């Protein structure tokens, strides 16, 4: 039996639980791009410690837990550095201009029925789907 979707659901619940902790305790929306982007722009210095702590957990805990719970996990990221750099730039610019990404607009926005969150999610999924269709099936480069 294929249990991948169960791991997806379980992981999703943990993600939502993290977002709930951030909201109910710290009164903030758990958006990965907003937290990292806030550190980059150094807006709202009072949030710096909180943001650094969040990033430390986000990077450090998978580092510690992966050998124990998911030693086979890999990113399988493309080795084409031109694609990696272009994609990274687009994700950085796009999420900050749109003021949110999959966690902020997606998870936190949709769950409060925010029109902006829903519309952003529709557009980045459409753009992502068209990009994969074009670059994988038409051009064959990813």
């Amino acid at each position, binding site marked *: 039996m294929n249990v991948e979707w169960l791991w997806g659901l379980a*992981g999703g619940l943990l*993600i939502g639980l993290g977002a709930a902790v951030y909201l109910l305790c710290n009164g903030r929306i758990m958006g990965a791009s907003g937290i990292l982007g806030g550190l980059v722009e150094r807006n709202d210095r009072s949030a710096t410690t909180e943001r650094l702590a969040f990033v430390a957990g986000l990077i450090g805990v998978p580092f510690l837990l992966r050998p124990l719970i998911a030693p086979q996990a890999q*990113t399988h990221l493309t080795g084409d550095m031109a694609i990696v750099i272009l994609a990274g730039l687009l994700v950085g610019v796009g*999420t900050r201009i749109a003021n949110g990404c999959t966690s902020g607009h997606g*998870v936190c926005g949709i769950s409060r029925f925010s029109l902006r969150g829903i519309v952003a999610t529709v557009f980045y999924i459409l753009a*992502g789907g068209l990009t994969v269709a074009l670059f994988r099936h038409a051009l064959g480069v990813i």
Partner: protein
Amino acid sequence: MRGLFAFLAGSLFGTGLLISGMTDTTRVQGWLDVFGNWDPTLAFVMGGAILPMLVAWRLTRNRAPLVVDRFPAPPRAELDRRLIVGSVLFGVGWGLAGLCPGPAMASLSYGGVGGIVFLIAMIAGMFAAPKLGAQLDRVANAA
């Protein structure tokens, strides 16, 4: 205390991304790939993540957060050019590499050189975003 809860939130987020498979770019691109061998996992992750947050938003009513004064303001209703253009740019990058900001950070310790390069490029993009956003407003106002 804010730091402690933020660390806990980041830890839960990172663990969820790890076990859900969302730090695997082939899964994310597989979900976006409706013309190929479609992978439904991301929909379960998104659904699973929204469930606790539906409850959490309900709990914010007539209450204050645990360690600060107030909850975020209600979401703005208006849609603007920044939201659409930014989301499209983000989506193109997401499709190209299969990484978004959360997984890019969560997988840093096992994503190899490519993962580090992606994160640096993403941070560079975040640096450039305020200027590019202002430029977008100017072009829009001139049109």
